[in-house]
């Protein structure tokens, strides 16, 4: 715990618009919950970064079927004792029913607004479907083979894996995705970079403001549609173009749908092996 701010900051505050005097508190925590009967896990937390690291589920010794995590609750208070007590008041609750589990925060009204959650790393087997929801916070998921859904208000999103499919929505933030699965990605404002690391899959990308860079697994059998007021650059084994506005091309049977949309921003599409 430490006093609120520094002397010069207080002097400035008092001279201009005011300040409040008090203390900060912190309460670290850890958690571990069995996922034996859980196929899908939703993690729904207030503003906090979420970092998920998935391990190989088939190696039970090294990767037990549990969700484990750590983190801390931070608080502000008028007294030192209050700072300590209020940081310890909120808890994370784990609920489970019929193959579905939910991790969320229980923040009593008495401490709403004066506590903040800082999550550490979350670890779980890679075959559990994930649904991650947070307010302001970057989201990083690595190693998951099951499907992944990410819904954040503000924050960058980084995905490595999500072999069975991926959906991402963030109000503001960059998206950095490398996945062998089909993907539906959207950000209100931010750049998007996607690399298909497996077989060709459907890919839908939209950003309200920002560039899109896509590396396709293959351009055979794709139904490509690009809309942007910026520059469009496509360089794959069978398509090479540079244009703007709108571009559409159908190759083969067109069974792989690729839709890229950015009202303001450049769009670049390339193949895994452009040569």
């Amino acid at each position, binding site marked *: 715990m430490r006093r609120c701010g520094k002397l010069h900051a207080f002097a400035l505050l008092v001279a201009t618009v005011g300040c409040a005097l008090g203390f900060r508190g912190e309460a670290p925590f850890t958690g571990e919950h069995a996922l034996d009967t859980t196929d899908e896990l939703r993690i729904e937390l207030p503003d906090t970064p979420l970092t998920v690291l998935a391990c190989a589920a088939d190696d039970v010794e090294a990767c037990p079927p549990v969700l484990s995590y750590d983190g801390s609750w931070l608080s502000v208070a008028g007294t030192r004792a209050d700072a300590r007590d209020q940081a310890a008041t909120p808890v994370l609750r784990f609920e*489970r029913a019929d193959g579905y589990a939910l991790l969320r925060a229980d923040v009593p009204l008495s401490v709403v607004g004066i506590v903040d959650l800082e999550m550490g790393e979350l670890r779980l087997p890679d075959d559990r479907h994930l649904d991650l929801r947070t307010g302001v916070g970057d989201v990083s998921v690595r190693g998951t083979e099951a499907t992944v859904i990410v819904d954040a208000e503000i924050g960058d999103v980084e995905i490595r894996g999500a072999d069975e499919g991926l959906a991402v929505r963030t109000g503001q933030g960059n998206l950095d995705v490398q996945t062998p699965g089909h993907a539906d990605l959207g950000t209100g404002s931010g750049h998007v970079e996607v690399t298909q690391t497996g077989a060709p899959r459907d890919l839908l990308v939209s950003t309200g403001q920002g560039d899109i860079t896509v590396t396709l697994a293959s351009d055979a059998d794709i139904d490509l549609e690009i809309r942007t007021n910026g520059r469009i650059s496509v360089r794959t084994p069978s398509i090479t173009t540079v244009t703007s506005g709108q571009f559409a091309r159908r190759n083969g049977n067109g069974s792989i749908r690729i839709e890229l949309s950015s009202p303001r921003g450049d769009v670049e599409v390339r193949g895994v092996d452009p040569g």
Partner: protein
Amino acid sequence: MTLHWAIAGILAQPAVSTAVAHYDAAPSQGTQTGRLVFPPDHRGTVTVRDASGNAVAQVSLGRRVMVELPAGSYALHDADDRKVGELEVEAGQVQGVELPEAWAVPEAEHAAPTPVETPKNQPAVTTGRLGPVTPEAEREVELVRRRRWKRWASPLLSAVAPGGGQALNGQPGRGLAVFTGTLGMVLGTVALWAARDPAEGATPGDPGRGAPEEVTRLAGFTGLVSAAGLLYIGQILDAHAQAVDRRGPKPWRRHQMAFEVSRFTTVAFAPGQPAYDLYSDWSLALMGQLVPRVTFGLSDASIKYSRNRQSLTVQAGVRTAYRFFDRRRVWLAVGGGALFQGTRADDLPVPLAEGPDSFATESERAYTIVPYVHFDARLFLLDRWSLGLMPRVSLPLLPRRFARGRVLPRYAATFELGANVGVYF
């Protein structure tokens, strides 16, 4: 142009006529008075009677006449003592008197004026002591004639384009200064708002912006918001004041009620990142003046909604103050009060399964009391309108909720700066 200037209130020795037998409301020094201007293009005699029916002035029409009277309600009576109109005299205001059309001098007579009934060496106002025709008074009469429509056009124009009303009033330099100041403050406010980092705290381990930098940004932002707001409202009031009467305002000391809109702000610590945040609170107050200089009333009334737990906070308080200084257009006061808050948060989502570890899903309620002491400085731009600054020190006895879901913990001594607009009745 012939101008007759009458001060109806000073009648120690009626110099001209005894038409007014009694005068109850003789204005003493410091009494709030207003002025009536009778137009020159009407004929006849008008008697002005106060609310008690006492004749306070008798005016022979036919020339432009100005009469100064204590603020209050008056009735106009014709030569047969029939009431022909009513009017309200406001302190510090100059207003033209509208008379029946039938009394107007025909256009033909304008071309060939007939002799005025009242001899030129006689005063037009037969009641009251006549003073000399001062250039200032003559200018004021001209002002009334020219500027009647500007009383509302000027503030309206200033509301749309800051400084426009001043320019319309023939004060382009003043208008330019207001426009430049308002524009600068708005641009500064936007720049400081844009300098925020909405993603601060999103990245793990990111220490965020340094405390001095963020505190300075927030302090500058809220200071400019308050200053720009006060300047904007102030220049609207000023446009009206300048259009009506360029004399300084006479604050309404005898008001019974005052209605105030206030914005209190403070920059204070916050949990996590960002480590500092802006806490602001809009509120209304209805203050009564119980005895001269002492006010008491309902204050800090507001309603706040927060997306966090869908909570609704209702706030109100009581406040009292003693005005220890009121010279010219400045009032200073000290006082204190307490605000009360009640908050209701919606039910939490239903738990997946019932059990000992399940959520408590019912709605929650919370209450708080925040006592405070304050200093109050007000500047009057019109007789009944003021702008003010109100720094105060408060101590929440339980967590206090601000707008946008911000909360300050209990026992966190808080220094706030309030800016307010007041209107007096």
